[in-house]
């Protein structure tokens, strides 16, 4: 770039109209992404609040802060809000919406109005769940197992189920939009083999969203029918099978965890190459691994049900398949590591989050194999070992990648740079707080502390106090980005078109981009991540 400070374009997607109406009736994928950013952030803190209370309760062995029924409501709301209203939409609906069309050289998604409808559907579903919380909450666990949820619970099950049912359509429509966009709106010359890996990740995620979410929808319909109309489907008194609910529920909810992690992995692919300034190692293997995870992820749901009374032979098959699904994830970890090897590594904030992801996801993934082992799972099922495992992936993995993505694309979205010092400090604080919170939980689970209990034997207190202390650090670490990112909107340095000197079509247009994304639709002539190799750099 030359020495002149890049001027903000006269008109961009943010400043062409400031009215509320232009925001709430927008068809612009970039504005819809910002709408999602705001709502998803609200839900993050709404889901975090019950966790704060839970960790406070668990600092002492006695159940002395809240009633048992209240504690049940806390962990239910934490799970429901975090999974359905934060993690599932986070990377796809915020970063996917903003970046995907730019990344493929398109002017918008295939169906912009459907995109806006997705956000409204998401928000309406969220309001139903908020109403359930305000009305006193749900105490079934986010898994809604029958017959407790359909017959015996006295909490707002139906209201919450309706909220999740509605929000599910937001997921389905976003996935549909991404699939059609990737098939039909790629810029000239942008073959599938040249697509950035974030796009591949979103494609695989969208396949899961589109195929799995409808099964959750119909399962929730059945559960609601049983609860509201006393129509017996899972009721043993009628010859029904409560385990059928579990099969149907987990048929969606296992692939759902891949909805949560695949986009995060896509983010890591983008940030690792940019800040190692090196072509990604094994591009086609990473792309293929995303698809393999999506396919295999549909075949392992029974590993949540090893001790449910499910057939042991079925359990063995699910166990083997669960081992298989770990392989493509491992392939990605090896490829990212190989990308770092002999790269020119810059420890920017997105790189710190990406490295944190790789370490924590690996630990979480390996402990998944412990859980996939039938004999071990009998011992640790429904203990804190499971809780630690999935938090390592969803928080140590997805949330860190989400934060890394927000920082990486912040200059593009806002035209401003965030303060790098504060951002790096926060990233490290997140890493420290996270490990202090969740590593002790592996030990607790192995020693036998059950999950979803608000009290425990005294010998577990030290580990629980460590975990609660870590949670307080984590909470602070999550607040810092809120503060400095908002600060940067007004006081951050202007970013320019490509502050990271990154490859990728989104960096070819202005920051923030114009409403129509590109002056002229680019023509693609080279592979993704065409960073110069060492040979190319050495020859003048």
């Amino acid at each position, binding site marked *: 770039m030359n020495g002149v400070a890049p001027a903000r374009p006269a008109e961009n997607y943010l400043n062409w109209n400031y009215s509320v109406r232009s925001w709430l009736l927008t068809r612009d994928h970039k504005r819809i992404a910002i709408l999602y950013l705001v709502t998803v952030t609200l839900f993050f803190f709404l889901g975090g609040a019950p966790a704060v209370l839970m960790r406070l309760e668990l600092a002492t062995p006695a159940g002395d802060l809240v009633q048992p029924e209240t504690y049940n409501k806390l962990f239910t709301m934490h799970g429901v809000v975090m999974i359905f209203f934060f993690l599932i939409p986070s990377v796809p609906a915020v970063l996917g919406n903003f970046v995907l*069309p730019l990344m493929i050289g*398109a*002017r*918008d*998604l*295939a*169906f*912009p109005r*459907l995109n806006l409808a997705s956000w409204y559907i998401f928000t309406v579903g969220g309001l139903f769940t908020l109403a359930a919380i305000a009305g006193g909450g749900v105490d079934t666990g986010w898994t809604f197992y029958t017959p407790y949820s359909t017959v015996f619970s006295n909490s707002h099950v139906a209201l919450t189920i309706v909220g999740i049912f509605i929000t599910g359509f937001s997921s*389905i429509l976003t996935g*549909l*939009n991404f*699939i*059609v966009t990737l*098939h*039909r*709106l790629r810029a000239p010359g942008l073959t599938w083999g040249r697509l950035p890996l974030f796009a591949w990740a979103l494609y695989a995620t969208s396949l899961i969203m*589109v*195929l*799995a*979410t*409808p*099964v959750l*929808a*119909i*399962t929730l*319909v*059945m559960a609601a*029918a049983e609860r509201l*109309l*006393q*129509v*017996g*489907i899972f009721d043993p*008194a*009628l*010859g*029904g*099978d409560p385990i*059928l609910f579990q099969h*149907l529920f987990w*048929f969606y909810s296992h692939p759902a965890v891949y909805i949560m992690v695949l986009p995060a992995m896509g983010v890591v692919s983008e940030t690792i190459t940019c800040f190692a300034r090196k072509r990604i190692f094994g591009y086609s293997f990473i792309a293929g691994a995303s698809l393999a995870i999506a396919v295999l992820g549909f075949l392992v749901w029974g590993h949540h049900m090893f001790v449910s009374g499910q057939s042991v032979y079925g359990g063995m098959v699910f166990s083997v398949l669960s081992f298989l699904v770990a392989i493509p994830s491992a392939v990605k970890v090896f490829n990212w590591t190989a990308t770092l090897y002999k790269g020119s590594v810059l420890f920017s904030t997105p790189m710190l989050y990406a490295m944190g992801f790789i370490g924590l996801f690996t630990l979480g993934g390996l402990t998944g194999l412990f859980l996939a082992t039938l004999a071990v799972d009998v011992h640790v099922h429904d203990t804190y070992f499971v809780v630690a495992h999935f938090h390592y992936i969803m928080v140590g993995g997805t949330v860190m990648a989400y934060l890394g993505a927000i920082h990486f694309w912040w200059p593009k979205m806002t035209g401003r740079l965030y303060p790098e010092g504060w951002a790096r400090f926060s990233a490290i604080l997140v890493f420290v707080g996270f490990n202090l919170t969740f590593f002790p939980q592996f030990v607790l689970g192995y020693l036998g502390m059950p999950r979803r209990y608000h009290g425990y034997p005294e010998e577990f207190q030290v580990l629980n106090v460590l975990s609660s202390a870590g949670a307080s650090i984590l909470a602070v670490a999550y607040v810092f980005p809120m503060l400095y990112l908002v600060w940067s909107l007004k006081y951050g340095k202007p970013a320019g078109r490509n502050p990271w000197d990154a490859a990728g079509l989104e960096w070819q247009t202005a920051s923030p981009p114009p409403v*129509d994304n590109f002056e002229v639709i680019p023509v693609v002539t080279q592979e993704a991540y065409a960073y110069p190799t060492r040979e190319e750099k050495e020859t003048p």
Partner: protein
Amino acid sequence: MEAVAHQFQDFRQQHEASRLGMWTFLVTEVMFFGGLIAGYTVYRIAYPAAFAQASNRLDVALGAVNTVLLLASSFTMALAVRSARRGGRWALAGALGSTLLLGAAFLAIKGFEYAHKAHEQLVPGPNFRFEGPEAKPAELFFSFYFLMTGMHAVHMVVGIGVLAVLAALAARGAFTPDRHAPVELAGLYWHFVDVVWIFLLPILYLVGRHAP
């Protein structure tokens, strides 16, 4: 109709994208109904006698009439798409209207069936009554009967609404041989709803009716 949307280069791309979008949506619908069919299948394998007895309480004649109505409506829908491609304004509006009426007739018969079932106390819940040792699983059958045909009926209502709008637009000459994508997309949706019924008919109405 309107100009090409700004994210597309030309109408061909826009049309192809819409078609892919509708097919993808239909795949999600397959998974949606598939969950119900999977649940139904589990129970049918577990309680074959009960399901056969319960199925015998459904009116096969009405089911057959409904099937003929829906198949006819798919025929008129195909005629509508053909008219749209050829540019016949009143032929198109008439075909869409016929499809709509046939669908409405289907729903009317369904409503009659439901009322009759309620009268016979075959609606699951506190009022359910079924004689014989297989009463409990029979209630399961009827839970699935009402859920499956009810979901199907909801989809038909949406389809009829869409057809009404399209018929009105067609009568006003909104569609041309070059610009009639909504009619094609509605056709895909309507045929899908028909195919779902083709699955529901045998598994609900024809259980245990084969010769011994």
